[in-house]
């Protein structure tokens, strides 16, 4: 029974893949009053459906670990259903239906974690519902302009109408992707969600916001370029969006560096990575959109990998703070490689595909002549090295800081299989960036009416600014690495393994297990002394939202004073209102 349910669940998690492979023809579902839901598979959502199809079973597999949890399985299936509806929708209502099913089912899944607190859950659902309602408002405004809910480009709008559409949709989608200052819910929910589900949230659900942002571009005839003219060589409207993305990524990167909890760190890093994608969407050229799509792909793979690996660590040790972990490299080697590949991808180092996608974005920024944005993006992507390092140092290197970390064993196979698959995918994509461009991204660009990027060979990435060859790069690096290691062993002399982890050159002192040797949690703390970083780290939007909640509560308290328990007051009020209205009527009307 147990096995059957679990297998069934696994089969359910393959539904996006089935949809992707077997979909033929559109489906229309009339709702009421001329509203018809249209579902069809187009290349643009098809790309995101591919991500979903990849990610869903990989997240489902670790979810099977542990006792059977039918509600969670059911909610996960619902979530997948919602996301598929969203991606297949050809009209706004269907889109919204999918969007909302996704929102609430993910919220309920979030609640299944014992760590969820009220603030986390509330901020998740309220921000997401705010996003949804903004979307709904945007849809209705769109409807009132066009008389139609189908998603299509609208022409002949005046500036005010364009601006209102852009603001409503833009805000809705920026909340979903967690752009600053609307990101409050992201770190809380990614942190508190069930460990494996965080992977889904970060890797796949944030991509729905990206999809929506790309969809937003298609609402206007010439994308963002047609809106408010040009700035330098890119769209002026996109310039603002791009800055939002970049500032998001900078701030989130520094916040990530200062985190002491692995999942929170990854949450902020997700915000930062999605910030790059938003920047690229702001640029809006075909190269940039290609870069955005590529980065979405890479980010999906990387975040799945990292979150699942981290979930494995948390499962095995019960700890999630850097200060409680350490030295797992020997005990959890596969997870270590998972995280290693993950952070290399996250940092955008060659030869993994994170570099390819960032490369496309950089070049698109160069082509748009938006150099300041480029510099800001470089800032956040180099600062990302610090948190990437923290992420691998904290749990795996250094010294074990808790009894559990000293005896932990490798994560169960349900966690390892997805990691190995994802590592393989990442390395393959890194070697063949051109393949991803040709097969995955160019059809989307063509469907968006843009010029495809194209690739001379599967291993090559080519742009107007030049490109690089992933195969050559990878083979050179690998060959050199092997040769260097071989030559090293040819040298005379003896390698000796240190007799103890405490055999450290420690100014002549003898460190012991009690000596605080692990630097994980404090890593990056000294960055506060840099004025800009210190300023960023000492400010937060939390106070603003907490204040908003307080004010709302206070207003509610004030109003609830009206609802006293005395019938005479009620009647007095009614009579007074009657008298007042009558007086006003007589004075004005008569």
């Amino acid at each position: 029974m147990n096995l059957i349910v679990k297998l069934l669940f696994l089969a359910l998690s393959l539904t996006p893949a089935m949809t992707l492979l077997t979909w033929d023809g559109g489906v229309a579902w009339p709702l009421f009053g001329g509203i018809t839901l249209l579902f069809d598979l187009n290349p643009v959502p098809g790309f995101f459906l591919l991500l979903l199809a990849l990610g869903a079973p990989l997240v489902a597999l670790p979810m099977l670990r542990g006792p059977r949890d039918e509600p969670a399985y059911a909610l996960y299936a619902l979530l997948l259903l919602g996301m598929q509806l969203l991606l297949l929708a050809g009209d706004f209502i269907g889109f919204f239906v999918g969007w909302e099913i996704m929102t609430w089912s993910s919220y309920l899944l979030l609640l299944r974690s014992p760590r969820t607190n009220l603030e986390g859950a509330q901020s998740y659902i309220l921000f997401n519902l705010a996003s949804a309602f903004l979307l709904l408002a945007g849809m209705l405004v769109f409807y009132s302009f066009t008389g139609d809910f189908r998603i299509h480009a609208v022409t002949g709008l005046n500036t005010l109408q364009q601006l209102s559409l852009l603001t409503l949709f833009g805000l809705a989608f920026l909340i979903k992707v967690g752009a600053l200052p609307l990101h409050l819910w992201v770190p809380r929910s990614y942190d508190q969600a069930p460990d494996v589900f965080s992977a889904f949230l970060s890797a796949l659900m944030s991509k729905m916001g990206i999809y929506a942002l790309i969809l937003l571009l298609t609402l206007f005839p010439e994308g963002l370029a047609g809106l408010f003219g040009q700035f330098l060589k890119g769209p002026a409207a996109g310039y603002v969006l791009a800055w939002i993305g970049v500032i998001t990524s900078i701030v989130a990167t520094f916040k990530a560096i200062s985190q002491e909890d692995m999942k929170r760190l990854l949450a902020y890093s997700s915000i930062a990575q999605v910030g790059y994608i938003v920047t690229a969407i702001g640029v809006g050229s075909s190269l940039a959109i290609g870069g955005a799509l590529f980065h979405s792909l890479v980010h999906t793979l990387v975040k799945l990998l990292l979150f699942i690996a981290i979930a494995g660590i948390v499962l095995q040790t019960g700890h999630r703070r850097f200060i409680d972990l350490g030295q797992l490299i020997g005990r959890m080697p596969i997870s270590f490689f998972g995280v290693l590949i993950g952070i290399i991808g996250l940092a955008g180092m060659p030869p993994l595909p994170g570099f390819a996608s960032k490369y496309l974005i950089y070049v698109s920024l160069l082509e748009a002549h938006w150099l300041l944005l480029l510099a800001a993006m470089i800032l956040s992507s180099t600062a990302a090295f610090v948190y990437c390092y923290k992420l691998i140092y904290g749990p795996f290197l250094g010294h074990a800081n808790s009894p559990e970390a000293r005896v932990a064993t490798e994560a169960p196979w349900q966690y390892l299989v997805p990691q190995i698959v994802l590592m393989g995918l990442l390395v393959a994509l890194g070697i063949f960036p051109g393949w991803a461009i040709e097969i995955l991204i160019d059809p989307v660009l063509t469907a968006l009416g843009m010029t495809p990027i194209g690739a001379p060979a599967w291993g090559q990435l080519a742009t107007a600014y030049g490109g690089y060859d992933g195969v050559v790069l990878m083979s050179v690096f690998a060959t050199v690495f092997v040769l260097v290691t071989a030559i090293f062993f040819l040298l005379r002399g003896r390698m000796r393994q240190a007799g103890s982890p405490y055999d450290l050159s420690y100014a002549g002192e003898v460190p012991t297990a009690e000596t605080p040797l692990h630097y994980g949690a404090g890593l990056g703390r000294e960055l506060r002394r840099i004025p800009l970083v210190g300023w960023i780290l000492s400010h937060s939007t939390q106070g603003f939202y907490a204040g908003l909640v307080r004010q709302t509560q206070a207003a509610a308290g004030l109003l609830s004073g009206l609802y006293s328990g005395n019938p005479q007051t009620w009647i007095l009020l009614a009579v007074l209102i009657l008298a007042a209205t009558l007086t006003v009527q007589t004075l004005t009307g008569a």
Partner: protein
Amino acid sequence: MTLHFTPVWFIAVPLLLAFLSPLWVRLRLLMPILLGAHVALFALALSWIPTVRVAPLLETIVIAPPLGIHLHLDAVSLLLVALFNVAGAVVSAFLWLSHAEPHLRGRPAFILILLLIAGSSGMVLTGDIFNLYVFLEIVGVSAYALTALRRDKQALEAGLKYLIVGSVAAIFILFAIVLLYLQTGQLNLAALARDFGHIPAPMQALIGLLMLIGLAIKAELFPFNFWVPDIYRGADPEITALFSGVLVKAFLFVLFHLVFLLLADPAVARTWLMALGATTMLVAEAVALRQQDLRRMLAYSSLGQVGLITLALGFASEATTAGALFHMVNHTLIKLLLFLLTALMLRRFLSVRLADLQGLGRAMPLAAGLFVLGALAVLGLPPLSGFASKLWILKGFAEAQVFWPIALILLAALLEAGYYFRWIKVFYAPEPPVTAGQAEGDWAYTPLLLIAGLLLLLGVAPFLLEDWFVQAAKALLGRGAFLESVLGVQP
């Protein structure tokens, strides 16, 4: 001999049953009979759908209108009557199938529930304004009595408060009726509608205001709804479900029926009503944020939805009206679900305060799940029916390019999410609650699951009822058609 089915049955059958109830002794049959009666009447209502589509059905009692009393069955009243009977059926099924307290299963409850449904149906059906008043008082008396049915301190206090405020509202309404009669010499609604325009304007305003305040108290509109939370808190949740599901809907209908009938141009009252609706909605949703008792919270939520319906009906375009009627149906179903769940929780934990319901999801997984479903529906999240109706309303506003109600409705929905999800979060807290009361059998969930299924069905396939709602909206807004059907003349 063939039975002659007429709309009178909607009123006569329950009344008859109520007054005949002392004839049979076996108390165990009461609830099945109650259920049977409602189901039968619901079936009767359904059987009239084709007839009503063609033309409204006029049932004359003794003398033809405008002199005599008549019942007016058109699409909208049929809709509401059917709805009331569904609500009655669900509540009686719940009372029958669950371990309800004895006072809720006794003869008084039986009689009063029947009276309540009969009175509500009467209010909706009647074409005579004084008859309306009579039904209003029947409903009122049965409601006061139902509130106090438990006869403990809280129930009695709630009943007394309800009685005082309800009587005052009735006096206002009666005053307005008296003035109307003195001004026009008519009691028939259609005739009144014809003649209302000839009344001097200040008198129109006075009558309008008196009527508005009286009905607003009954229909729970701000700033006349301060009594609601206390009553909902004091009464049994099963009864409250009827109040929120049946009573309010009937009064809202009466309010708007009168508005649309008496005023040749509803635009006069549009601003007033929409403002009332919007304030009701926002204030209620805001206040609900701080509630610690589930019954109170649901009361405020109910107020919020009433505000939304008022806002939409007040706009008086066909789309918003149809949407609002749809929303009425949804809201009735949802509030039945939620209040009956509250009843279950109350029986299990002897309290429905937020702190006492920590971790309810573990003790009563099905109840918690159904609560979530209800909450999602009331928030208007797809794929539940609340979404379809809200979308219909919003679409109506968007078609008319009026955007401020959209903004307010969405803001209110956000506030509503703020408290509903707080409760849901608490339900799914990891630590299990202290269970004090008795566990409930699975049968009690049957009516609730039925409602849940209905909510889902209506959300996925609202087109099933679309036509009916459009007809109903047309009937509600179609003043000319109403007058024509009753008086035979075009005003």
